[in-house]
Every structure is written in structure tokens, then in C-alpha cells.
């Protein structure tokens, strides 16, 4: 699939660490405003793919294009939200967003985003005073600070309890729609992927496998479960 509105394109993308090939000739496009989830077992290459798109690593072979331009170095249009919040413990919540910038616009944007993630009252708290879910909300707000075109979510809800996880799924969904972001989600949780994304892609042994439509914004639980089961069966099949 190739399209002029593709934000991310990978053409025959490969990634090797020495002799070990993590990604094998991967091809895909992601369109502007699309929410794509990559699922699969650990070690399948999901996080590596995200790191390539973030520009934290480079492809061993093939090409990775960002808005039609070959990506070299850090992807400045993208922001990553990691599984561990990676907040700076010595900065307050507000300063974690602005990196202690005194710029009034940055401060205003940080407060606006804290409001968006329902943490306006916690601006002066330090990360160590927050719960896991609150920390991830701060991390989400920080990822949005520079108004990125592409939001990369690297298993951001993996360490949260079930209830907090559900709330965060809703919050991320709302924020992504409100900010009209192109989003890539890496997750182990197939139901989470089907619920949140427009498109779910399975990565298995370094290859892109099954691709199904997600149920982003849908309330049809049964349909979601059916799709998730199909994806689950594909992942577990030898």
C-alpha cells in the first residue's frame, strides 16, 4: 500500500543486531490521523519497529520514510510515550512537561495539557508523589508538549492495574481524537489493541502477519472480542 498522505512508510525495512535478525523485510504505510496497533509476542520485533520509527535506531536495510522523506537520525515529528513513565523525579509535574523552560507559551501549553489529562491540581507535585496511572498521564501530556504529528506508544499501559488501564485507554483515545494525532501503539494486549486502534497488525518472528480492522470508538464489545480472538489465535498458532 502506498499513498501520498502516508505519514510513515517502511519499505523492505530490516533490523539486525549482529547475526540476529529482529525485523525481516517489513513493508507498511500509516496514513495521517490513523491509529495503528502492533501486537505480538515478546521478542517479535514490535518495540524495535517503534524505535526505528522514533529514530532511536536506524534500519539495517531498506528505507523508512517520514512524510515522504528518508528518516535520518531522530524523528523530530514524533514523540514516544514509554512503558515506564521516564519522568524526571527531581522536576515537578509542570517542569517535567516544559523541561523547566521559563517560556510563557511553554508554561501555558503545559498547564493546558495537564488540564487535558485531568492533572491540573498536580502541577507542583513531584513524580514520586503520584500513582502509576497519574505518572503515565503526565508522560502522555509530556509527549504532547511539542504538538507532535506522530505519537508512539510503547506499551504505555503495561504496568498499570486493570481499572487504571481502562481509564487510560479512554483518556488516550480522547486525547488522540482531540489532537488529531497519527498514533502507533505497541501492546501485548490484543483486546486493548482492537479497542483502541483503527488497524491492528500482528508482528510475528520479525514479519508482519495478520492485519485486521480495529474497533476504535465502537461500543460493540462482542465484535471486539471476536476480532481479538482471531488475532490471538493467529499469534498463538505455530
Amino acid at each position, binding site marked *: 500500500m502506498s499513498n501520498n498522505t502516508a505519514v510513515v512508510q517502511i519499505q523492505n525495512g530490516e533490523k539486525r543486531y549482529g547475526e540476529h535478525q529482529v525485523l525481516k523485510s517489513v513493508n507498511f504505510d500509516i496514513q495521517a490521523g490513523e491509529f495503528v496497533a502492533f501486537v505480538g509476542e515478546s521478542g517479535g520485533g514490535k518495540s524495535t519497529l517503534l524505535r526505528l520509527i*522514533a*529514530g*532511536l535506531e536506524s534500519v539495517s536495510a531498506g528505507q523508512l520514510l517520514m512524510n515522504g522523506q528518508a528518516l535520518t537520525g*531522530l524523528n*523530530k515529528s514524533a*514523540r*514516544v510515550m*514509554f512503558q*515506564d513513565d*521516564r519522568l*524526571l*523525579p*527531581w*522536576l515537578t509535574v509542570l517542569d517535567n512537561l516544559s*523541561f*523547566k523552560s521559563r517560556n510563557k507559551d511553554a508554561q501555558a501549553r503545559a498547564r493546558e495539557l495537564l488540564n487535558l489529562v485531568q492533572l491540573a*491540581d*498536580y502541577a507542583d*507535585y*513531584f513524580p*514520586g*508523589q*503520584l*500513582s502509576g496511572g*497519574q505518572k503515565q498521564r503526565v508522560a502522555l501530556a*509530556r509527549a504532547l508538549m*511539542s504538538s507532535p504529528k506522530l505519537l508512539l506508544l510503547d506499551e504505555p499501559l503495561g504496568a498499570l492495574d486493570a481499572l487504571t488501564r481502562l481509564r487510560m485507554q479512554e483518556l488516550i483515545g480522547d486525547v488522540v481524537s482531540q489532537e488529531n494525532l497519527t498514533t502507533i501503539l505497541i501492546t501485548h494486549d490484543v483486546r486493548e489493541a482492537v479497542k483502541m486502534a483503527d488497524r491492528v497488525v500482528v508482528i510475528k518472528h520479525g514479519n508482519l502477519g495478520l492485519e485486521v480492522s480495529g474497533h476504535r470508538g465502537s461500543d460493540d464489545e462482542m465484535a471486539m472480542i471476536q476480532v481479538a480472538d482471531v488475532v490471538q489465535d493467529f499469534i498463538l498458532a505455530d
Partner: protein
Amino acid sequence: MNNSDKRGDVFSKQSLERFLPWLIPVGLIIIWQLAVDANWVDGTYVPSPLAVVDKGVSLWQAGTLQENMGISLYRATMGLIIGGLIGFVLGVANGLSKTSRALFNSTIQMVRNIPHLALIPLIIIWIGINESAKISLVAIGVMFPIYINTFHGIRSIDPNLIEMGRSYGLSKWQMFTKIVLPGAMPTILMGFRYALGVMWTTLIVSETISSSSGIGYMETNAQQFLDMPTIFLAILIYAILGKVSDWIAQLFEMLLLEWQRAEGGKANVK
């Protein structure tokens, strides 16, 4: 239990917490005074606390005490600034740069194992017994704890935070000021606190061995005249200066590590 009882309990607990650290020192001074007054110990060799205070007042009135304290403080501060800066800069350089680490670290690790007080004869021969000699000795003493702690503080920064900074487009300077330095600060301050102890020990030894001024000199000089109150006064002054140094270190920790205290303080309410 009503509110006023609870407030009373909190108040008495706080008072007790404030009082407890003073209990042993004050108790020892009282016992010391009683022991001398009751002739349980020979006042010639162990002067009473009041005799020591009297001596302090008379030396202060003569101007000797403040002069010697001033020069000792000057030597300690200069040594700390020079040695601390060198240790900090080397720690930062070796913590951040592979080349610098390869070039300097193993040599520094080798040299730091030499007890710096063993250098006193060498420094007296090379530099003499002037101010530079004593300041150099203090500087060498404080340099290593600050170097080691700065170096390890920087080397042990969570690589995930570095990666986060990189992925968020922070410049090298921003990475240093927003991530590396604050992350290493708790370890650096531990080194600073330790260095303050080394600073006083080194100063005492250097002033006792080779000096014509300072608290250490005052003490050595008093020894020749069996002036016990002055000897005890000098020891007491060192103890007070050590405590003041500790307060200064705590003040730095309060200012620079506010986040660590806050984590143990404000409760998460939502």
C-alpha cells in the same frame, strides 16, 4: 481523645524529638563539670567546661581566638573550593567522556589510594609551611571523595532517562543540566559531606605539624605550656566547626534534593 489532647501529644513529641539530640552532649558536660568540681578527675589535666569557656572568652577578648579561627576557616574553605572544583570537573569529564575516562580514571584511582596525609613531608619540602602548603593538602584530601562521587553519580544515571531526553530532542547542555547533573546530585552531595570531614581532619593535622597560626597551631602551642583549657577549647572548636559543616551539607541537601523530601511528605490524595 479530643483535638486539644492530640495537639498536645504532637507538641510533646516534637519537643522530645528536638530535645533528644542534645541530651547526651549536655549530660556529658554536666557530668564533666561535676567530676572536676568533686575532684574525681585532676583539674590540671582535665579542666572543667567552665574553665574552657573562660579561656575562650579571654582569648576572644585578646583577639587571638578569632584570628586563629579566621585563618583556619580560610585554609579550609580555599582547600575545599580548589579541591572540590578539581574533583568535580574531573568527575564530570570522566563520567561523560570515554576518552577522558580512558586517559585519567585509572591514574586517579591509583593516586587516590595514597593516604594524602603521607604527602605532608613532601609538601613541606616542596612548598614549605606557608598557606599554599596547607591549602594544597586540604585540596588533595577533598578532591578524591568529590571526584569519586561525581564520577559514580554520573555513570549510574538511568540510561532510560538519557534515552528519553534524546528522543525528546534535548540538546547536550540540556541533557547535562536537566538530567545528568540533577540525577547525580544525591551522590555528589554524599561526596561533599564526606569531603567536609576529610577537610577538617587534614586541616587539623597540617596545622598541628607545620603552622604558626590557626586552631591546630593554637592547640600545639598550648601543649608546650601544658595549657589544658586551650587544648580543650581547640578540640571543642573543631567539634563545633564539624557540626556547622554538617549543617551546611544538610542545607545543600534541603535546597538541591527537595524532591526526595517531598516524596516522603505530601500524600497522594486522588
